[in-house]
């Protein structure tokens, strides 16, 4: 099967998350809101907290998340106006002018990554900071991640940090059964940090 995330020639932007390095400081959420001006109370990225075990053997893991920019995006498929589209390099973006706010994409997203932006009167979500990418910069959340839990790069470039991380460690993706081919990879957290 053609695996759209790993066909060589093309650029494919992905996140590689190391949940073990995330300390839930929420700096990524702050920098995102500053960079992308998400309305008060709404966030383009977030952190899932998972408690495991039974007292006294407890642990908490933090899972940084944002839009997964799927290769087979369920949101794009159902958009009735074509407002949600997929760019050549795999970014899934929303054209705010074309979005009429039917919220069908919010029903379709397995990650609940989308929200209604009341200021724009449209559905909004993470863009992988497309304006920064196009200027040659990494997304804002990556730059402010103090634990280096968020890694970003081109998975089709073997020299990139993300490709090296994925070659070295076992990883998983979320809700793969939705058939969405997400572009956020998570390194298994039950390992010792070197």
């Amino acid at each position, binding site marked *: 099967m053609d695996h759209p995330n790993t066909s060589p020639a093309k650029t494919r932007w992905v996140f590689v998350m190391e949940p073990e390095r995330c300390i839930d400081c929420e700096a990524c959420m702050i920098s995102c809101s500053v960079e992308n001006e998400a309305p008060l109370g709404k966030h383009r990225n977030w952190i899932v907290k998972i408690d495991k075990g039974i007292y006294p053997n407890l642990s908490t893991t933090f899972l940084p998340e944002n839009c997964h920019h799927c290769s087979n995006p369920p949101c794009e*498929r*159902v958009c*009735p106006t074509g407002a949600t589209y997929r760019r050549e390099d795999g970014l899934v973006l929303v054209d705010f002018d074309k979005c*009429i706010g039917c919220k069908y994409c919010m029903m*379709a997203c*397995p990650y609940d990554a989308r929200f209604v932006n009341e200021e724009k*009167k449209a559905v909004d979500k993470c863009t992988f900071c497309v304006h920064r990418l196009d200027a040659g910069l990494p997304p804002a959340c990556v730059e402010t991640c103090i634990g280096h839990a968020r890694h970003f790069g081109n998975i089709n470039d073997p020299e990139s940090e993300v490709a090296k991380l994925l070659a070295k460690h076992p990883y998983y993706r979320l809700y793969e059964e939705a058939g969405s081919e997400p572009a956020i990879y998570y390194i298994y957290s039950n390992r010792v940090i070197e």
Partner: protein
Amino acid sequence: MEHIEFHWNALIVFYLFTAGVSAGAFFVSGLATYLGGERYKRISRIGALIAPWPVMLGLLSLVFDLTKPFEFWWLFLTVQATSPMSIGAWLLTLFTVVALVYFLLWFPRPWRDLLKAPQRRSAPNTPRIWKPLDQAQINKARRIVAAIGAPISIGVGMYTGVLLGAVPARPLWNTPMVAQLFLVSAMSTGAAAVLLIAALLRPKAGHDYLHEERRFLVSLDIMLILVEIFIVTPFFLHQALSTWSSSSSLRILLGGPYTLLFWLGFVLLGLLAPLAIEGFELFPVVWREQAVRYSRLWAGLSATLVLVGGAVLRYVIVFAGQVSHFLPLYTR
């Protein structure tokens, strides 16, 4: 239960319900025209006169559920083949137009005279004259429009379910049950709307066909209710025996906030109660070849129950579906 924001709300429920009633009323009217002709004329007329209006109200409520109601026309600048909503927007528009034509064909004069047909030229080189249809032309046109509209109305009934079913992320919706049930329920609520209006109107003196039309509607409705029961039952069995996502989405209906509403509002009041009433009415026909028991009270009551049940069904599915979700696999 964790806090869930419902992005699709009562306006969507109303829209799905009204689209179903319209599709059903149209289909029942067409069916009566073909099966009964003159005998079921009252049913055909009531169905035709109802059909265009609920769906138009529903579309209006859908538009006002948008964040940008006045930019809904973006829907009609494109056809997105993979989006049920895009297909549905076109389908509903087509249906509304056909239903309005059908409405005019059944409307008494003078509105009916808005529909004109060209007359044969009296002499060569004279302009064609457009005249209102005569009765034979009207009858023919009614049958043609009913035949064109029937598949479209089935499409509308099914679309209301496919809209929800096309979304893998909500396991309760992502089953064939929703489209099947919504289609049959659309037909059932459409028949009930006709039944209700027929019960509210005092039949004209000397109306000979009252019992026959009553028997037609009641047997149709009983059949549809039975089909609904045969859709719901296997759905529950299959979901219960399926993956975590499916069986847990079933739990929302079996032991969650929507349990009472589903079982009392839909299954008991919307299916079993009207089935009992209509069975009671039809019983003499089946057993002793007598006329159907007719009382306007029973007829109105069973029709109201079917309509309420249809609305409750859509409410429960729309809201419970938004609660259903995949197995939270953040466990690694």
